[in-house]
């Protein structure tokens, strides 16, 4: 069981791949035929977590404590009865979009980012969850949070500062970035420098659309986000963001972004054409890397399709660890790189649409 693994959540189930002698091999499939929007591994408890969306039968949460051999269905989080949406509709769980383990010094804590707009917290290892009320009750939610590709806003990114687990940074799509320094008891906006042309006031404090946000684990004050309106970086834990999009070039629009584990100057994106034309740029896939904090970008295409390519990569479908990168596309292509994203190998071309890709090591 020891080794590197890759969890791939898809439209038709959860796949695991395993690394042997430098190549990735299919290991197992779980939840055949059922959507798995997100899956990840909690190294603290050696548990695989999977968001499982049955469509007809609703959104479920499963965990495996034996590396995928057996699964246990957990009671799904429940919105409080007084949690209301616009037009006074009651909020109900639509999607568990992201799952994030808490800090190493709080082994029982787990976070879920949901649609509509819920941050759920467990302090008993995921047996039960309660909604974070301070974020839900933040006065910015009602006027500034709204759905984009979905009917409602969702929490798509949750960052726990590895040096201080009380410091949380979350991204709401659409709503913006928020930070807490007391474990979620209070929140403040973190959107200065983002300019969203789709808002009446582009420089509004809230209402922005971070597609995905991540950080450099070795220097967690360095944040990166692939936003709807471009790529941004912050060196002060989100107080100020700098637009690092290419003015001429593909590194601008897209969904996912990966940050180097050790070097705060290095990140990768998988560009898409634009919000008006959500396809690969010029019918060809590339991965773009910056090694200077976003001042410049290099584009790598070796091993990626360069003609008749319509693939885009969803926000959770690109991941890296210290040695590898991998991403899956809406067209069911799955690629991995072992050289910093310069050359790519194909793990398969006929998978279902890929929702999430996450590495783990045992």
């Amino acid at each position, binding site marked *: 069981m020891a080794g590197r693994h890759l969890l791939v959540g898809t439209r038709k189930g959860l796949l695991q791949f395993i690394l042997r002698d430098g190549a990735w091999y299919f290991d197992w499939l779980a939840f055949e035929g059922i959507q798995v929007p997100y899956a990840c591994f909690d190294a603290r408890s050696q548990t695989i977590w999977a968001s499982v969306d*049955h*469509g*007809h*039968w*609703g959104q*479920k949460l499963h965990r495996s404590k034996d590396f995928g051999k057996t699964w246990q*269905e957990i*009671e*799904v*989080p*429940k*919105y409080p*009865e007084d949690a209301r949406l616009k037009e006074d509709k*009651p*909020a*109900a*769980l639509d999607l568990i979009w992201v799952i994030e383990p808490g800090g190493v010094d709080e082994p029982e804590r787990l976070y879920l980012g949901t649609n509509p707009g819920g941050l759920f917290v467990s302090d008993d290892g995921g047996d039960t969850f309660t909604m974070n009320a301070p974020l839900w009750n933040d006065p910015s939610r009602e006027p500034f949070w709204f759905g984009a590709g979905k009917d409602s806003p969702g929490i798509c990114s949750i960052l726990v500062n590895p040096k201080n687990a009380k410091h949380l940074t979350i991204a709401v799509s659409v709503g913006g970035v928020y930070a807490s320094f007391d474990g979620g008891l209070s929140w403040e906006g973190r959107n200065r420098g983002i300019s969203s042309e789709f808002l009446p006031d582009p420089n509004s404090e809230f209402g922005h659309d971070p597609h995905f946000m991540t950080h450099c684990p070795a220097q967690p004050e360095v944040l990166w986000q692939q936003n709807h309106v471009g790529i941004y970086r912050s060196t002060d834990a989100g107080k100020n963001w700098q637009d690092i999009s290419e003015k001429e070039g593909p590194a601008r629009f897209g969904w996912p972004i990966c940050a180097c584990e050790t070097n705060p100057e290095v990140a990768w994106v998988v560009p898409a054409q634009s919000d008006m034309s959500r396809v690969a740029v010029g019918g060809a896939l590339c991965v773009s890397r910056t090694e200077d904090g976003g001042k410049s970008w290099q584009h790598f295409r070796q091993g990626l399709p360069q003609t008749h390519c319509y693939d885009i990569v969803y926000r959770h479908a690109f991941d890296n660890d210290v040695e590898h990168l991998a991403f899956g596309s809406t067209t069911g292509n799955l690629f991995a790189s072992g050289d910093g994203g310069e050359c790519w190998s194909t793990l398969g071309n006929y998978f279902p649409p890929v929702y999430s890709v996450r590495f783990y090591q045992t």
Partner: protein
Amino acid sequence: MAQVAFTRNLQRFFPDLEETEVPAQTVAALIQALDQRWPKLSSYLVDDQGRLRRHVNIFVDEVIIRDRETLSDTLHADAKVFIVQALSGG
């Protein structure tokens, strides 16, 4: 006692699910009673606010229930209830 039948699709998640009889006067009470026998079954039929899921149908004597929000439709003593998924998706 209401007689309850289920779509076979639910047996994937509840392998011992079978036709059953339940003493219940409303659909809401029936769902609650079913959950006692098959824990978590109700969460497959209704959302976390107790509303019938969008792609689930419940028929009482071959008629779709009217109240999908609170499941207040009443059941007479010999009601025949059929719980089924809507035909949707791909």
